[in-house]
């Protein structure tokens, strides 16, 4: 009995994780209303396909709000509706921002679509000529070519040759192309050159982070197990009733509020759900409120405070010395001045933690690695002892860190306050 339950629990966890990691599933929730971005985008693209005209559009919104996911859903649906009338070329600004690379990739994808031989040795001119010819041919055959430019703002760096040639090719009567740019910069269209911008239709779709009610709906949509799957029905019933109870609980609403107050995008929420699902105890196979609370603490980490908790006492001494130098309003100080301060502390308080210069230098380098301090100048001309440094944490953080460090001597706290 328990073995069956464990197997069912595992299957349920795999199902939930698959749902969370699948953007198509998630964003299909919001596509039903008529003024959603999905319907708008679908309308624009399908109308350009059916009316055989050119179009361009920008999808803008912060990262993790579902731009590419909604676009993929639209394209999937359109490919089903109008087979043989659409071919999709996908480019990414991270990979193809160089013009040669981009044109080569376009040529390669066109060749794969139409089952032609792709030659790796073709030059930039050959490839661009090929692209123009293909566009003309597709236009004559009433086939629309959809160009998806991910990370559009990276294409807009440099000379924008690719953008110009794409948008220019669209201006001819015989071509049927749609250019869809996706960017997380809300001013991506301002980055375009004048000649490119004039050829660009200023259509923009804004993808906004979700409201709190949307997050609730999404959580229910993802976490409720389907009743018609291969899982045992009584387990599914129990699981779903548990989920509904938790989702209606005020404490969970508080947790979700706390989460979305810091970062309200979809991707953050999905990370939270992923973490919560991974906390499911496979013996019981049910979710509890504690799963969600532990997930929140995993997502909300404070790396600098964790670092401070891990520092050794000598490293804490060095940071306290730096803070004291800052309080004394020395605009710039380096390792030598920190050592001088360290020595004066030891002379006045006679502590037992008086270590040699080389050991202190090693601790100083550890602090640099942890990025709790940083060099304030950019040159590498001087050796490490003479370059000016600065603290990267605020005095209040340092204070909190000293308190949380288990082995911090009391004198350091006193020095911080004085």
């Amino acid at each position, binding site marked *: 009995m328990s073995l069956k339950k464990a197997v069912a629990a595992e299957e349920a*966890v*795999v199902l939930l*994780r*698959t749902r*969370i*990691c*699948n953007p198509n599933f998630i964003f299909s929730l919001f596509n039903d209303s008529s003024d959603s971005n999905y319907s708008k985008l679908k309308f624009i693209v399908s109308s350009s396909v059916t009316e055989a005209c050119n179009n361009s559009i920008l999808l803008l919104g912060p*990262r*993790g709000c579902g731009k590419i996911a909604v676009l993929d859903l639209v394209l999937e649906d359109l490919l089903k509706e109008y087979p043989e009338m659409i071919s999709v070329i996908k480019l*990414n600004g*991270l*990979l193809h*921002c*160089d013009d040669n*690379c981009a044109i080569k990739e376009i040529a390669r994808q066109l060749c794969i679509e139409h089952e032609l031989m792709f030659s790796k040795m073709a030059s930039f001119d050959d490839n661009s000529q090929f692209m123009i010819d293909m566009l003309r041919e597709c236009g004559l055959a009433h086939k629309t070519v959809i160009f998806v430019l991910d*990370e559009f*703002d990276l294409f807009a760096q440099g000379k924008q040759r690719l953008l110009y040639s794409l948008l220019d090719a669209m201006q001819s009567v015989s071509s049927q192309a749609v250019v869809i740019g996706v960017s*997380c*910069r809300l001013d991506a269209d301002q980055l375009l050159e004048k000649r490119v911008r004039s050829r660009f239709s200023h259509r923009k779709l804004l993808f906004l982070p979700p409201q709190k009610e949307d997050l609730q709906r999404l959580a229910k949509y993802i976490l409720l197990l389907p009743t018609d799957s291969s899982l045992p029905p009584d387990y599914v019933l129990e699981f779903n009733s548990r989920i509904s109870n938790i989702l209606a609980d005020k404490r969970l609403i508080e947790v979700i509020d706390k989460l979305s107050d810091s970062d309200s995008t979809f*991707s953050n929420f*999905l*990370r939270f759900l*992923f973490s919560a699902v*991974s*906390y499911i105890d496979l013996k019981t196979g049910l979710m509890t409120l504690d799963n969600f609370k532990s997930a929140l603490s*995993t*997502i909300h*980490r404070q*790396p*600098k405070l*964790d*670092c401070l908790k*891990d520092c*050794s*006492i*000598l*490293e804490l001494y060095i940071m306290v010395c730096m803070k004291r130098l800052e309080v004394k309003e020395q605009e*710039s*100080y*380096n390792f*030598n*001045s920190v050592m001088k301060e360290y020595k004066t502390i030891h002379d006045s308080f006679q502590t037992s*933690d*008086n*270590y*040699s210069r*080389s*050991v202190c230098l*090693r*601790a100083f380098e*550890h602090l640099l*690695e*942890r*990025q709790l301090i940083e060099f304030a100048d950019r*040159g590498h*001309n*001087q050796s490490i002892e*003479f370059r*000016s440094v600065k603290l990267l944490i605020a005095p209040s953080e340092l204070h909190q860190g000293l308190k949380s460090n288990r*082995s911090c001597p009391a004198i350091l706290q006193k020095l911080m306050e004085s």
Partner: protein
Amino acid sequence: MSQEEEETPQTTTTRRTTRLSSSSNHTQNETLKKPITNLPSLTLKNLTFTHNNKPFTYDDLISSLPGRKPQIAEILRLLGPVNSPLSPLFVYGSSSTGKTSTILQVFKYLNRPFVYSSCRSCYNARQLFDNVLNQIMLHRRNGSNGYSGVKKCEKAADFVNFLKEGLRSVVEGLDGDMVYLVFDSLELVRDWDKSCTILPLLFRLSDVLKVDGVGLVFVSGASIDTYHSDTGFVDPVPVYFPDYTEEDLRQIFMRNQSNLKLRSAFLDVVLKPFCRVTRRLDELSTALSPLYEKYCEPLDDLSVVPNEETKRRLFSCIQPHIAPALNEIFRVKSQQSLEAGGKEGLKRKTSSKKFGTSDSIDDLDFHMSTSAKYLLVSAFLASRNPATLDASFFDSTGGSANQKKKRKSSEKSRDLKEASEQEMFMKGPGTFPLERLLAIFQCITSGLEDSLEEEEEGLQGGTGLGGNGGENSLMSDILLQVSSLCSANFITKGGSCPLEGSTRYRSTVSDDLALKVARSLKFPLSKYLYRR
């Protein structure tokens, strides 16, 4: 020899063959005749850790990584059951906290296929791409393919395309099992050339690839907030590895020891003071292992269980060694101590060392030629003294005219002196052009040459020409020595003067080292140093 002579008349081609190339052709022919033993080609099974027929249980996993039980539990629950999709994981923590070993051991325990590449051994993007592709496409570099990678991949676009193909075939071959890509030492990617595109690409790799059945795990020494990016990237799920606590360190140091009680007594004494300085495992182990040897020295029988009295005795023996060990970073056995048979040399050293002061040993730990030592001292003087005072220091009277009469310093001059000292602290050593270094060197060594000449004259009655010739022949050697001092980092290249365009140098030796070198040459360094 005769074979080579036969070779060279035979190769009467237009290309001139040197002796070396003809001899290497010869050896190449020889190696081709030997049978080449190939390693077996890679299969999909090579993507998982092999077990050697011994099952690796959960208890083995926990016991092989002491102090990491909560982190192992976290990683196991995030990786999830078999074939469950994975949001990218970001494992971070400071160095030597066991991140890499934990990840590898977890994959060994779970018996899942993975591809591991370290951004430390692959020092740029192309190497990284090469490494990942070779592993995915099960390619082994050997003599038959000329030790080349499987695909020539310079750009990220090609990498993504090849990776897609490779991953699809791997996932098919594994019947739909997931394969994991592990990227280690990710913090080094921040310093690479095109890091502003490579880092976001790596973090978004699962989106860009759009291949099912791939999980990404990143291991980094720095937390995610130190990865700066223009337009940001979607954060992966973080897993934090804190530093080892003292109890964990104790557990680690007790492993694989023959005499546990003795080791535990040693750790009781030593661990706490050392943990105040650093809690990094690698530094502690290098510091503690020689101390442990010293601790066990008085014992005749190493397997004896110490009672209270023995413990006290051992403690009193080791105590004077603890404080000096705390103050040094690593001990390199110098030539003198090895030759002197240890005891006498050490005695001399320990008596001259004072409790708690900076590490200063009277003698130099390394050997340098006399001219190199003079060069070092000249560089030190050139960096410390302002150039305008050279004439007064290095005139023919040997700088003795520079001794000002001591006047009672007024408050204003004392303030000025403090301010200039502060400036000295901040600015560091100054730069000097090569000509100034050589001029100072000439001045210093000309005094020496004269004294040597006098000795020679006294002995043999030689002429002055010999001295001059000796100086000239010394010159070319000096320039070589300057470059070797540069590579030893005693002199570094500073910025170049914008007017002249020549490079300027800077001396990076500490005051102590310069003093030691000068003392070994019997050179009165303090007379030549500028005191404000």
